[in-house]
């Protein structure tokens, strides 16, 4: 009988190399650190490319400027959607998933070689998609609705990217298994990791929907399938297209909790309530594919109502709960930090000079007020007819994805650079202003596009003056004004975006080193940042007068805006 000397072959857990972060106290493994770095860097590069394209789109839609010719406009718009909505966000989400598993749980990353393979697939897919779009034969918009056909390479590039992302999500789940097996934590996973698990589960659903629709569409582009049903395509494609935005929601809500924990020491008011809110996302957020089918023929009203409301708005309830518990946790923590005067001392004396906190709080407020409320109104069966495919739709989702997700991810980057790259923010004075400049621009583009959409301006349209059309129609002057203001806001957001990219890239290469003795952070963490972010335990609800006032204002705005739109609908022509 042969025996294997187990001591001779070191277990993976023993060969993994860890360091302890001197600022947060988190245990960080070398492979996890490297993979977080490369995914975050790729994310920022695609944000730069997609953001530039977005600026060109907005400047073209500014009627007085109209910078691009028609053909190039549609090409750039296709590239803008793919780069920011898919590549920037999913690369960053993979970094967040690795952070929320390996770093927060103090574990090694499962199967690092496979994680590298996933990263390479994603990079190949993303570069291929850009090359195909720029070559000019795949100007089909991000949604690529058939029977309009892109080149086979376009569909294939997205499939390759999605497969890479799917593998990365499995690495995340594998890391959770490793952490549990190797007892790197005790009891339940912390809330931030729980939120990341929610994002991971939704990601699996999303990427599976993408595969189900993109693989046959790819075969169709090769001539192997004769027909793709247009309605079926929309129902399944949006299972990817909208659900991928629900990954964002789960990821950026987790980031809100994480930044609150690390910067002001916030702990969830009640673990049970916050986790239940995430659980609502897992159960119901995926139904949102229906938001894009409300003005379509062929689907019954019953199907539309059940799906568009996320099953009686239970997922909206989840978001509304986070809308109380995130600022509530911050208020409770700030009161514990000694800021107890009046209803709002906790907020006015919050660390607004710290771009991680400022970005996080602006993201929270704008996601709720702009993206959230407009999303529910837009997703109401009958109200959708008022705005379907108008520029109101991009207005809404720039409120969620730019003002909400992107700003939250930028805020998180201000923690990732010092903690993972071990380089400090190089220009703290500039970084302080970045979330405000970008946030102002993001709020502007969202609100002005929504305004123009209310006046009927179509989305994905090169010329709202309809100069070359046979039956010209004149949009009101206010609509032109809105599109001009949208262009100005886009410039503001672009300035904020350039500031962000310059700060991040310069900090990574030339920022003050933090791995030396005596190094200090430009934007300090809370003294209990590790405990707050990586252990569970409810804080309990103290007095939260400030949060209650904020939530009350939010609810009143929500109800008011909802009924204003019904009033507007009731004045339309009659149709049934």
């Amino acid at each position, binding site marked *: 009988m042969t025996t294997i000397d187990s001591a001779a072959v070191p277990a993976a857990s023993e060969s993994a190399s860890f360091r302890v972060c001197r600022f947060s106290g988190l245990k960080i493994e070398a492979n996890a650190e490297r993979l977080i770095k490369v995914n975050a860097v790729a994310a920022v590069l695609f944000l730069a490319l997609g953001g530039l394209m977005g600026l060109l789109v907005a400047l073209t839609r500014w009627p007085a400027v109209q910078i691009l010719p*028609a053909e190039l406009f*549609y090409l750039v718009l296709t590239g803008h959607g793919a780069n920011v909505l898919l590549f920037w966000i999913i690369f960053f989400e993979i970094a967040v998933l690795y952070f929320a598993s390996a770093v927060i749980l103090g574990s090694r990353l499962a199967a690092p070689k496979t994680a590298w393979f996933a990263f390479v697939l994603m990079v190949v897919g993303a570069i291929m998609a850009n090359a195909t779009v720029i070559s000019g034969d795949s100007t089909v918009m991000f949604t690529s*609705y058939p*029977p*309009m056909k892109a080149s086979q390479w376009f569909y294939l590039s997205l499939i390759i990217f999605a497969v890479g992302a799917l593998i990365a999500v499995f690495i995340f789940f594998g890391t959770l298994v490793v952490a549990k097996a190797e007892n*790197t934590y*005790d009891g*339940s996973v912390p809330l931030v990791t729980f939120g990341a698990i929610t994002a991971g589960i939704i990601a699996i659903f999303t990427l599976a929907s993408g595969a189900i629709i993109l693989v046959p569409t790819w075969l169709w582009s090769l001539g192997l399938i004769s027909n793709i049903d*247009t*309605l079926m395509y929309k129902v399944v494609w949006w299972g990817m297209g909208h659900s991928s935005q629900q990954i964002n929601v789960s990821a950026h809500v987790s980031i809100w909790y994480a930044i609150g924990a690390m910067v002001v020491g916030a702990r969830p008011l*009640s*673990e*049970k*309530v916050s986790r239940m809110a995430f659980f609502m996302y897992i159960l119901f957020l995926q139904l949102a594919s229906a938001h894009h089918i*409300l*003005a*379509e*023929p*062929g689907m019954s*009203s019953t199907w539309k*109502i059940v799906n568009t*409301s996320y099953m*009686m*708005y*239970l997922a909206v*309830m989840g978001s*509304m*709960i986070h809308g*109380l*518990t995130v600022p509530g946790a911050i208020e409770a923590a700030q009161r514990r930090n000694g800021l107890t005067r009046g209803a709002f001392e906790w907020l006015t004396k919050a660390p607004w000079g710290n771009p991680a906190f400022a970005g996080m709080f602006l993201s929270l407020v704008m996601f709720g007020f702009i993206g959230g409320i407009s999303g529910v109104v837009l997703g*109401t069966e*009958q109200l959708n007819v008022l*705005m*379907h495919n*108008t520029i109101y739709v991009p207005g809404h989702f720039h409120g969620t994805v730019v003002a909400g997700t992107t700003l939250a991810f930028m805020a998180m980057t201000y923690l990732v650079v010092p903690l993972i790259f071990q380089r400090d923010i190089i220009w703290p004075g500039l970084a302080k202003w970045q979330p405000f400049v970008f946030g102002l621009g993001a709020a502007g583009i969202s609100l002005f596009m929504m305004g123009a959409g209310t006046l*009927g301006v*179509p989305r994905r*349209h*090169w*010329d709202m003056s*309809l100069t070359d*059309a*046979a*039956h*010209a*129609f004149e*949009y009101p002057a206010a609509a032109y004004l809105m599109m001009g203001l949208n262009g100005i806001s886009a410039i503001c957001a672009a300035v904020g975006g350039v500031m962000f990219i310059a700060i991040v890239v310069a900090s990574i290469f030339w920022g003050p080193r933090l791995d030396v003795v005596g190094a200090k952070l430009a934007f300090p963490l809370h003294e209990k940042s590790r*405990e707050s972010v990586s*252990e569970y*335990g*409810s804080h309990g*609800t103290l007095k939260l007068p400030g949060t209650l006032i904020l*939530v009350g204002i939010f609810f009143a705005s929500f109800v008011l805006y*909802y009924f204003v739109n019904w009033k507007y609908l*009731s004045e*339309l*022509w*009659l*149709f*049934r």
Partner: protein
Amino acid sequence: MAINPPSNRLWWKEPIHGIELGWIIIAFLWGLFMFFFMIAWHFIGQQNLSSETYKIQPEDYAAKVEAFASKFKVTDANGKAVEEDGVPVVRPPAGGDAFILARLWEFWPILELKKGESYRIHLSSADWQHGFSLQPTNINISVHPGYEHVFTLTPTGSGVFGLVCNEFCGIGHHTMTGRIRVVD
């Protein structure tokens, strides 16, 4: 191993505090209200999009629209067909069927409707997906090839209304328009 044991193992057994519970109840009830209001609007509202739809080959639909247009086309005193920029004006009977064909890059033909009368509007595409956007009244409906969508429309205002395509349909997308005239 984590350095400190968690402060409270049984988080799922903790009671929910009054503030949070109150907000959960408000959010839940508001959600229920919004859900049932969509259903209620089908009974109390005048704006509900029909889901009546038939599968049809795009070329068959185009032929139906041609037949409809030649039957109900508006003629002037000399018996000549009235056209706007080469597109015939068609006057469907009040209460009857009216057809609109979306194709690269126009809505065809131009309908002349009577204010306050109801029409069964048929809408489909001959080629790609299009977006029916009626302006300035702002009614927006998707148009699919292969699906004939039928809904009853009652204009409540008169004048000349614009149709703009709001689903991307290729390089001529921004030139795709149409018109609906409504007479008193």
